Structures are given as structure tokens and as C-alpha cells.
């Protein structure tokens, strides 16, 4: 049993998923914590599947993986569940890692459950935090296992889930919640090529067409965000938001209600069904602060809320509150910034 910590590294058409590198970073921290608590020397390893992936492995190593298992096969070019799960289950059984992390992407949330079912182990969905700690149950203590922390019940509760009795402990983790470590280009690691066991019979899904565009904004990396909600009122109203954002060097985000109303593209949506952000500053304009929205932004270092309703829930998590009309406050804030900067 290797006891190492693994990350399933997702690539789409030769590009590594951001969340996978965030997970390599997180796994490095977990390994350090585990080793200091137990005196062992577990390391971070990654699994990378695709048609041609060996070239990507060095990037994965720079972020902290000691070893990257690469499986290359034309039938693994695009993700499909049966071949991917078969390859994963096979390597896991041979190497016996203690933890495996997947990004909570459509791919990770399709693959993870299939692998968990096959191995008959637990899987916790859509985690927002991971820690190492002890668990006591019925007089037994399980030491240094993985705490899998996730919102549930529509974001109304936060649950800590453990799977103490079986290895590997597996979790899918939401994009944007784990910090990315700085890559170190001098890091050396091992690239292990593994022969593919995929059979034509496994290829049950035929991909007829695949359309995927780069997101028009990458809010997960934004240090400053100005977000608009229904209170902005109209599509034109968003011009005021965008103009203010540009002035202060911020990116524009939105609530789901504003996206659904057609004020702005879905790529800008923050929250449970949008992206999770953690900027230095989040300025929420005309956003009520529903739990599903807060789920994506309440880790922001500073929050300013602008709302004409003094009782809006957003004020309960804000550091600065301004009660007023968007059309009045935002131009005034812009003016104040230009005067001071």
C-alpha cells in the first residue's frame, strides 16, 4: 500500500483544468500535514489520461506532484465514462493510494462516482474544504483521516464527511476554492507510462460533436470584483457597473437572477451554480444575498454591499454597507475613486 495522495488531473483537448492544479497544490499541503502528524513520508501523485499527455506531466510536477502516471490511448482523447473509469480503477487497485481528489467538474462528477461504485468506497461530492484529523466512533479512533467538508441542503448547512474504514478516501472538490501554489520550474518528478487496458468494447459513448469555448472571464483569479444583481435593473444598468469596474481595475460578476434576466453572460455568474471567487474586494451591487449567491463569494477578504433595502441579507456578511440607489451610489463611488487615486 503506497498510502500516497492522488489527484485525477483533467485535461480537455490538451489543456489542463485549473481545478486539477489547485488540487495538486491542496494535496501538497495535505501531505505535509499528514506527514508531520504521522512521521510518514507520503507524496502527491497524479493520474493523467488522454491521447497525448506526457508533455503536460511536467507542469503537473511543477505544482507539486512527485510522480505522474500517464496513460495514452486515442480512445482516451475525450472523456467518456466507461474507458476512463476502467483505467482509473485498474491503477488504483495496483497502487493503493489513501486519498484521491477529483475536480467537481462535469467530468470529475461523472467519473468519481463510477470509480467509487466499482471500488465500493465512499465519495464526497463538491467539497469546499479538506483537512486531516481524527474520527471517533463506537469507541474506535481512526487517526489522520480526510475530513471532507461540503455545503449541503442547498447551502444551508456545512457537513464534515468522513469515510474512515476504507481506502481510498475520495472527494470531488469545487473549482476556485483551493489556492494555487506557485509553480516551481526546477522541481523534478517521475513520469510513469502505463499501458492502456481500454478495449474497443468499452467505448460505448460516441462523441458526435463537441463545442467548448474558453470562458470569457476567469473570475476565480480576479483580485477585485464588482458584481451586479437584479437591483441593477436593466442590461444598460450593467454598463454603469462595467464602467465602474474598469475604472477601479476590477472584473464584472453577477447574480444568477441578473444572468437569467439576460443582463450579462452566464460566465459571469457567481454562486452555487456559478463560480466560486475569493477576491481581495467584492462589491455587491443590487444583490440581495441569497444563500446560493453567498456560497460563491463569502470567502472574499472584503465585501462592500450597495442596496436600497437596509434589511437585505447581503449586509449580514458585508464589511461595508451603503444603503442607496445603484444609479446614484456607483457613479459617486467612481468619482470618489478617481479623485483619490
Amino acid at each position, binding site marked *: 500500500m503506497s498510502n500516497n495522495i492522488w489527484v485525477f488531473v483533467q485535461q480537455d483537448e490538451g489543456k489542463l483544468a485549473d481545478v486539477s492544479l489547485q488540487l495538486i497544490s491542496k494535496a501538497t499541503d495535505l501531505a505535509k500535514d499528514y506527514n508531520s502528524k504521522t512521521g510518514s513520508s507520503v507524496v502527491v501523485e497524479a493520474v493523467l489520461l488522454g491521447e497525448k499527455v506526457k508533455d503536460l506531466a511536467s507542469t503537473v510536477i511543477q505544482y507539486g506532484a512527485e510522480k505522474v502516471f500517464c496513460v495514452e490511448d486515442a480512445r482516451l482523447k475525450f472523456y*467518456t*465514462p466507461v474507458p476512463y473509469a476502467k483505467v482509473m480503477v485498474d491503477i488504483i487497485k495496483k497502487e493503493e493510494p489513501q486519498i484521491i481528489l477529483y475536480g467537481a467538474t*462535469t*467530468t470529475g*462528477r461523472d467519473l*468519481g*462516482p*463510477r470509480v467509487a*461504485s*466499482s471500488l465500493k*468506497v*465512499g*465519495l464526497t*461530492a*463538491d467539497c469546499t474544504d479538506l483537512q486531516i484529523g481524527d*474520527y471517533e466512533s463506537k469507541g474506535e479512533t481512526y487517526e489522520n483521516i480526510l*475530513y471532507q467538508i461540503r455545503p449541503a*441542503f*442547498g447551502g*444551508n*448547512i*456545512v*457537513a*464534515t*464527511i*468522513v*469515510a474512515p474504514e*476504507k481506502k481510498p478516501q475520495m472527494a470531488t472538490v469545487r473549482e476556485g476554492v483551493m489556492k494555487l501554489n506557485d509553480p516551481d520550474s526546477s522541481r523534478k518528478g517521475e513520469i510513469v507510462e502505463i499501458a492502456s487496458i481500454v478495449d474497443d468494447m468499452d467505448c*460505448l*459513448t460516441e*462523441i*458526435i*460533436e*463537441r*463545442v*467548448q*469555448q474558453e*470562458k470569457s472571464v476567469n473570475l476565480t483569479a480576479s483580485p*477585485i470584483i464588482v458584481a451586479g444583481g437584479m437591483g441593477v435593473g436593466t442590461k444598460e444598468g450593467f454598463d454603469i457597473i462595467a464602467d465602474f469596474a474598469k475604472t477601479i481595475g476590477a472584473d464584472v460578476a453577477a447574480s444568477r437572477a441578473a444572468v437569467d434576466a439576460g443582463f450579462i453572460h452566464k460566465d459571469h455568474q457567481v454562486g452555487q451554480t456559478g463560480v466560486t471567487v475569493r477576491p*481581495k*474586494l467584492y462589491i455587491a451591487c443590487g444583490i440581495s444575498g441569497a*444563500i446560493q449567491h*453567498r456560497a460563491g463569494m463569502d470567502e472574499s477578504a*472584503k465585501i462592500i454591499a450597495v442596496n436600497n433595502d437596509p434589511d437585505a441579507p447581503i*449586509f*449580514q*456578511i*458585508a*464589511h*461595508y*454597507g*451603503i*444603503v442607496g440607489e445603484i444609479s446614484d*451610489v456607483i457613479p*459617486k*463611488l467612481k468619482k*470618489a*475613486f478617481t479623485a*483619490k*487615486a
Partner: protein
Amino acid sequence: MGLNLVVLVKQVPDTQNITGDAMKEDGTVNRGALPAIFNPEDLYALEAALRIKEEIAGSKVHVITMGPPAAEQVLKESLYRGADTVALITDRKFAGADTLATSYALKCAIEKIGKYDIVICGRQAIDGDTAQVGPQTAEKLGINQITCVENIEQIDEASLIARRSIEGGFEIVKSKYPVLVTMTDEGHTPRTSSAIKVMTYKNAKAGDPEIPMWSIDYIGADVEACGLKGSPTKVKKIESVVLKAEELQMIENTDEGLNNLMHALISDHTLG
């Protein structure tokens, strides 16, 4: 001919419309205070099945739920909308099941129905939000899966073509049967109940011939793999989400107030 369609539906607490008394003091959920509803995406799953039935003559729609006797309500609602048969998988020994144990029980129930071509689930249930039961049921049945399906674009007696959503786009994929698909709420709007069917089934109760109850023994499931015993994941701790109110500083909506705020943010390097 026709296709045999199995739809998996779940009764869930209405977590989207949480009211004040929904959370207990100790941070656990007061299920009693939340109305139980048909999991929203499962209505889209049922709708997809009913549309296939309309398209391919001779098809049958079987609806299964696993839950307590009160879950009969979602089965009745399925009958109202046009399901051919329903079954309630219910047994005290199923209690405490995580997604692994749930998918195992559902797999046994599906095999009890016998021949099936397509199993249709919702993408995820709004209580756990895991989206795991679909893929895990597919794996247990040893069949292919297509998750996050927005729409079934084409279908015939041998295969289907579905549009599934992926980050920043979509995929058009084809699979032969048997296959399990999970539906999002982007597809065809679910139909409402038929008045005639409501008349037919409104007095039906779990245990009646229209709503049979299936036990662990009946579906041939191994007790060790069911309920709490068959669940590798345990809940260690639950906390309700607390709003941190203490730090709020109200800023006057005046030139002076806003100037001071901007000044403070620039001097501590948050801005500029």
C-alpha cells in the same frame, strides 16, 4: 416492441425555499418544517421518459423511488403525469443509506423489473446535491451513462443521441442501450398532471396494487450492502451556515462617506 424506460425519482425537502424554523438550534435540519417535494430535476427525467413513450409506440415508463412510505406522493404524482407502473422501495434496513448503498438498492430494484433499455435520473437531488446516484447505479448495472443531459435529440429502438452540457459548451453523444442518462432542468418543461389520471389514482396508497412496496428481500438485496451498513461515508459534524454580522460598518451615502471609504481602501492597498 417499444422501449422499457425506468425513471428514478426522489422525494426531497424543499431546500430552495428555506424558512426560519428549518434549522434546529443544534445546526441540524428540521425536516418536519420543510415541505417534501418531487426533486425538481426528476420531473425533467420523468418528462423525458414520457416524451420517449409518445415517440416510440409500445414503450413503457416505470417509476421507482426508494424512501419512507410518505414517498408514495412522488409516485402518485408520476402516475398523474402518465407513468405506467410505479414501485416504492421501502424497508427500515435502507435507513441511513449514502449514495453507494442507495445506488445498490436501486440497481436491485431495476433488475427486479427485468428488461430495461434506458434508466433516467435527475442530475442531482436538492437535499444532498451529490449527483452521484445516477453514475453509481449505472456502474452497478454494468451499463453506460450519459450525465448532465439537456435534451434527448434523437431516439430510435436501438440508440439515442443526447446533448449534454459541459463547462463552457456542450457535447452531442450517441449510445446504444442499455444506458443510464441523468437530466438537467434545461430540457422540456415538465407537464402537469392529467385531471383524469388524478381522479383514477388520488386515493391510491402505498401497498395498494397501483403502488406496490418492495422490501429488501423482495428485490433480492444483500442486507450488508444496504442502509447505514452499506455506506462507507459517515457524517462527522453538521453546522448551519452562520452569517458573520459583527464586522459590518455602515457608510453614509454622501460624498464625504464614499470618499472616506475609497480613501481607506486605497491606503490599505485593497484598491489602486
